[in-house]
């Protein structure tokens, strides 16, 4: 645990990293501005005030008292945006993501889950080559091989990411202008998140975002230090964004598998694919129709002009990747979207094993004593 005199400077650094004024932070943490100023100057604050301040800065009291720089990567990600959207809303959700990710990390360590990140870490980083489309196809193959996924459609992108040690979250950033983000604290496994407010919250879009962010997490990160990217929508992706887009498509639908599927659909290489082919492929691989159209261009079976004609279809795809957003139970809705997935699962696992108290479980999933938390426990068949 850090010395009391180190608490103040740590709080101040975290606040400045997020670009929050003392008044903003005090309001977010429900403490008085005077309390915050005293805490930053001398570290003098009660535990409950310190817990509120740490929470409002993306960490927990435990993170603060351990002296961890829990805000680094997520605040770096936020700074990569050009703030063409309502920054305060996006910042609040990014802070909520940081909270969830820090909580997830602590739970995974407590439960002694086997670390998967060494598998992912071994793959990168990798610099850009001149032909990014070709490179992205090769990288997608390497990644699939690392997990032993062959060329089958990926039912769950999140499960796939988890096998490489990359934890995937959902969030609602309140703007369509951001697809998702990726961040990685120093010497830790990376995290990625998809924004359900973008692209109508379609499951196929969420899957593409996860795959896109996975590319950044594996290949665009620095070797050790903290790093983050927040993805603003752009129609003219270049460099690493272009690579990540193409990587996502090749990961979800490898060229060989696409051609096999088209052959099974009665297509021959002499034919021009039809809209029916496109829709069937999109459904088979769980990819958006528009993304699949561009992917067919990259795969060399369609011209760009032909692809542009088929941009308006949409194909629903049932997937586990957006479960907690698309079909949460009424009890799950009490939990914030960021914690509703893996954090809730891990905390409930610890509770079911009798390794944490009910109070600690509520603390981890962010439910107060006066909520109907018993419903959630009962729904998951946990004896308390």
């Amino acid at each position, binding site marked *: *645990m850090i010395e009391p005199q180190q608490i103040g400077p740590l709080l101040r650094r975290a606040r400045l990293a997020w670009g929050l004024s003392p008044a903003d932070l005090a309001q977010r943490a429900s403490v008085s501005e005077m309390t915050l100023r005293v805490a930053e100057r001398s570290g*003098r604050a009660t535990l409950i005030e310190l817990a509120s301040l740490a929470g409002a800065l993306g960490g927990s009291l435990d993170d603060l*008292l351990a002296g961890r720089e829990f805000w680094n990567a997520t605040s770096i990600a936020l700074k990569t945006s050009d703030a063409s959207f309502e920054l305060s809303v996006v910042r609040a959700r990014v802070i909520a993501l940081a909270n969830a990710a820090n909580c997830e990390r602590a739970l995974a360590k407590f439960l002694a889950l086997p670390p998967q990140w060494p598998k992912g870490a071994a793959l990168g980083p990798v610099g850009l080559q001149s032909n990014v489309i070709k490179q992205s196809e090769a990288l997608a193959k390497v990644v699939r091989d690392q997990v032993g996924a062959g060329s089958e459609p990926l039912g769950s992108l999140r499960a796939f990411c988890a096998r490489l040690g990359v934890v995937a979250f959902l969030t609602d950033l309140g703007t369509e202008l951001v697809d998702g983000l990726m961040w990685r604290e120093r010497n830790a496994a990376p995290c990625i998140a998809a924004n359900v407010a973008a692209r109508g919250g379609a499951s196929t879009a969420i899957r593409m975002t996860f795959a896109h962010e996975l590319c950044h997490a594996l290949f665009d990160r620095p070797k050790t230090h903290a790093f983050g990217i927040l993805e603003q929508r752009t129609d003219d992706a270049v460099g690493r964004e272009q690579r990540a887009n193409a990587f996502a498509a090749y990961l979800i639908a490898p060229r060989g598998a696409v051609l096999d599927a088209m052959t099974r659909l009665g297509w021959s290489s002499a034919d021009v694919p039809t809209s029916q082919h496109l829709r069937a492929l999109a459904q088979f691989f769980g990819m958006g129709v528009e993304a699949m159209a561009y992917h067919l261009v990259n795969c060399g079976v369609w011209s760009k002009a032909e692809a542009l004609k088929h941009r308006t279809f949409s194909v629903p795809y049932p997937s586990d990747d957006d479960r907690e957003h698309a079909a949460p139970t009424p009890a799950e809705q009490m939990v914030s979207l960021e914690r509703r997935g893996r954090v809730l699962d891990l905390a409930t696992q610890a509770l079911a094993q009798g390794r944490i108290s009910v109070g600690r479980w509520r603390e981890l999933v962010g439910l107060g004593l006066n909520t109907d938390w018993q419903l959630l426990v009962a729904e998951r068949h946990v004896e308390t």
Partner: protein
Amino acid sequence: MDACALIRLYKCEALGLLVNTIDFAVAEYAYGEFAAGGPSAKAALVDLAVKKRPIVPGSPEWKHFALVRGEFSTVDLGEDQSIAIALAEADRDNPMPIVTYDNGAEKKAHGFGVATVSFLETLAWLVSCGLLAVEEAEDLEQRAVARDGWRRSAGQAGSLAAQVSSLCEVLGSALAAAKQQTRTRRR
């Protein structure tokens, strides 16, 4: 007193029984959690005249908290705070048990050598002090079943009357003194 104990007694409309009995201290976090229940919950705390106990960096409680909390705690902040306060009070030769109805918190407190008072022990204590008849305590237990999901665990079989006699056997003269003190305060 832990927040889960406060909330169960509150849900069972039994907090009032504790008014003017002994001094209660509540960790700041648990106090805040319980008070968030609304104005009547806050009023119940005022009636009970509980002492809200914060912990600030550098205090004797803080040192115990650091030890109790560790890297990843198995209990919540209020429970850790309560254990730290009990340990600091023990250093001041003022040993304090924790009233907690959470098995995990009970286990952790015992690990640090802090005594705890369970729900059944609370009922037995109320009967022993003459604040409840055995039948009233049994009614209260049934209310806890219906309103707070209370269930006895395997090791808690037996009638409340038996619980009371075993408590009297263990505490003996200390309980008689507590009974006298309660009578004096309530007068």
